[in-house]
């Protein structure tokens, strides 16, 4: 390929286009939305603004708080708390069920904004992502400038508040974004990183859960600084291989790259019944709506799957997953449903079902759409046509605009 001087990308001018292993210090931005689901609800329904909003479900339902507004946090409501407990602490709270599809749409818009500043974008969850801007600074200015621009755009274009951290690696960037919530922008410099994080509690280290924290505290290690002053060899002896990583993180070292999200490995949906049900027909009806959602996602992503997996959780929380392989890859609702129902009928033991899920794996891109003809099955044209029409209706009128008659809402 011929390369002209004129068409050479700007970022190559300074000759810092080296491999990541040898490259200059990295600059990573971590973005975390502030009380994401609750903020979206307050954005869409102005009457909720300034009020304690709790997303997760009605207070008498089982289930947990997925997000709550900062107003609700004042009452001691936290994510992952049971809804009943949240109600006890904050009876005046406004409980809403949440609208997954709406949150996903906004999440995609958010990622679009971030992707404008670097191709190295790694979504962590629906409201959180890493952006490696090491090479982008020549184009858009220093990292803090980029971070401020993104924060402003999220505010003006999405109407939402977010917190950002700018740091030399992912661990520190995530720590930083969490330091001044909501609406914060915290920069951790390489030289001062060690000192900046020293006073923080050990739980802030990635991978330190309640169990490890307890173990560390029993040995007198309360803060990240305590770990920095530890003998790494001793730490490794006490905590195994984990100890070494822990020490490095505590010193603010982390060389994991920002990786664009891996290829989709499986696509699945699950549903928790409001009331446990042992009625096979009801479970089947839910299964069809789940299979249709999986089919829709596969078609959207231009993927087909070959292995159908059924997840079945009974009232006592015993959970079974069973899978079967299809003869050929498919993205059609009824192929997925047929296999899932067969798995259900083969394994259902009559106990009330709490949760049911369907997923497709062994995915494959559509590529050249070659279809292996079969002697027995009519070509799947009719089913494909149906899927195309249903998809088009959903694109135009929303995901709930059309479904199968068998699906009871």
């Amino acid at each position, binding site marked *: 390929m011929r390369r002209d001087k004129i068409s050479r990308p700007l970022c190559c001018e300074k000759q810092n286009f080296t491999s990541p292993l040898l490259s200059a210090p990295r600059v990573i931005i971590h973005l975390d939305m502030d009380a994401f689901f609750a903020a979206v609800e307050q954005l869409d329904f102005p009457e909720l603004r300034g009020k304690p909003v709790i997303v997760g479900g009605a207070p008498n339902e089982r289930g947990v708080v997925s997000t709550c507004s900062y107003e609700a946090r004042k009452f001691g409501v936290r994510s992952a708390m049971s809804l009943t407990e949240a109600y006890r602490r904050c009876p005046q709270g406004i409980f809403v069920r949440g609208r997954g599809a709406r949150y996903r749409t906004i999440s995609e818009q958010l990622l679009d904004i971030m992707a404008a500043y670097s191709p190295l974008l790694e979504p962590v969850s629906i409201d959180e992502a890493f952006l490696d801007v090491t090479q982008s600074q020549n184009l858009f200015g220093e990292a803090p400038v980029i971070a401020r621009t993104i924060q402003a755009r999220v505010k003006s274009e999405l109407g939402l508040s977010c917190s950002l951290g700018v740091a030399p690696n992912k661990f520190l960037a995530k720590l930083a974004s969490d330091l001044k919530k909501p609406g914060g922008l915290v920069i951790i410099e390489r030289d001062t990183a060690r000192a900046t994080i020293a006073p923080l509690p050990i739980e802030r280290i990635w991978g330190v859960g309640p169990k490890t924290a307890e173990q560390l505290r029993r040995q007198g290690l309360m803060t990240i600084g305590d770990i920095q002053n530890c003998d790494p060899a001793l730490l490794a002896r006490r905590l195994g291989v984990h100890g070494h990583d822990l020490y490095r993180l505590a010193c603010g070292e982390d060389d994991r790259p920002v990786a664009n999200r891996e290829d989709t490995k499986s696509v699945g949906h699950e549903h928790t019944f409001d009331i446990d049900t042992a009625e096979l027909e009801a479970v089947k009806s839910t299964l069809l709506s789940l299979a249709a959602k999986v089919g829709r996602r596969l078609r959207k992503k231009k993927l087909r799957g070959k292995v159908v997996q059924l997840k079945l959780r009974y009232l006592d929380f015993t959970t079974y997953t069973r899978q079967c392989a299809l003869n050929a890859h498919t993205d059609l609702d009824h192929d997925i449903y047929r296999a899932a129902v*067969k798995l259900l009928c083969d394994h259902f033991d009559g106990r009330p079902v709490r949760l049911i899920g369907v997923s497709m794996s062994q995915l494959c891109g559509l590529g050249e759409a*070659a279809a292996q*003809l079969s002697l027995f099955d009519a070509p799947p044209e009719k089913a494909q046509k149906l899927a195309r029409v249903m998809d088009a209706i959903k694109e135009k009128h929303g995901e709930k605009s059309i479904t199968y008659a068998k699906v009871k809402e």
Partner: protein
Amino acid sequence: MRATANRDDLIFAAGAAGRTLTSKTSSTPQGLRLTAEDGSLCLTSIDNEMAITCRIPAQVIEPGALVLPSKLLAEAVRRFPGLDVDLEILEGRYTLTLRSGFSELDLLGMPATNFSELPEIDSLSTISIPEQALRSMLRQTSFALSSDDMRPILTGMLWSYSPGKLRLVAADGFKVASRTENVDAAGAQPFRVVVPGRTVHEIERLLGDNDNMVEIAIGRNHILFQVQDTVIISRLLEGNYIDVDRFLPTTFVTYLTVKPKALIDALERSAVVAKDGLIATVRLHLRDGRLVVRAQSAEYGKHFEEWPVEMRGEEMDILFNIRVLGEIVKSIDEGDIELSFTGQHGPCIGRSTTHPDNYWSLVMPVRLS
């Protein structure tokens, strides 16, 4: 129990009988039963689909029986140094002591009293066939067994016998294979049964290239195979097998005769680049006595070759899944392969030019949408 057996015999028997003890089967395996009696050791295992029992000669001083967990025996014996292995169970104990050379190993077992009995075969019909003949029949058909759980009957192989002839059929919808062989079994009743694919693969593994006779007995719900000292009893699949002859076309538009090896090599060259999408696809183009084989992918490149071939009939431009067509071509074990085409989107039939009547296979093409 006290007995002595040859180490290699024991390795073979523990391995053969242990085949049902895989974790893949959904039933909980009961273990391996070891029985010593009348100058032989007998190893048996049972799961919900089949039972395998293998008898080997042994010097039995004192008869007895014990059930051992899973593949323990095979693992133990394989590591013994000596030519022979002494086996001993002390009276009233459930521990099998194995001695070989200077080594001694105690394996903890269970009493054999709770072990399921082998199913009784109400033998309705019995035939026998030389090992190598059955091996050739299975080699030409077992590749077409379906793995699609949605049509369970097709995961089995159809075994049908009408006086003088045994026929095996496997089909998964993309391909079909049918093989017939003359079998001399005076007075045997005709039968038509479907044998689970797993059993078929087990039998195939046991068969050697020799003239020893395989005994086959058909019961109402079971089939029994005796291959030398190993007996496999398998459940039969319930349901009606499809009539594959219904799909056998009678009129063709194009015929191609080619050496199987030459075509397989060409397909393998195509497979190097055909890696895009769901199906690795090859395009065969027949015209004016020439065959063009080609494949391409946007990502990896393209393959093209053209050679003169023996062909009759119209021009034919057709796509196949490389793997499926390859299996059809490989199934020809003697002579050239004659492929008969019905059209671009219709079935294609493969036969051997040496034995055109006892074997045919069918392959469906791929269509671009």
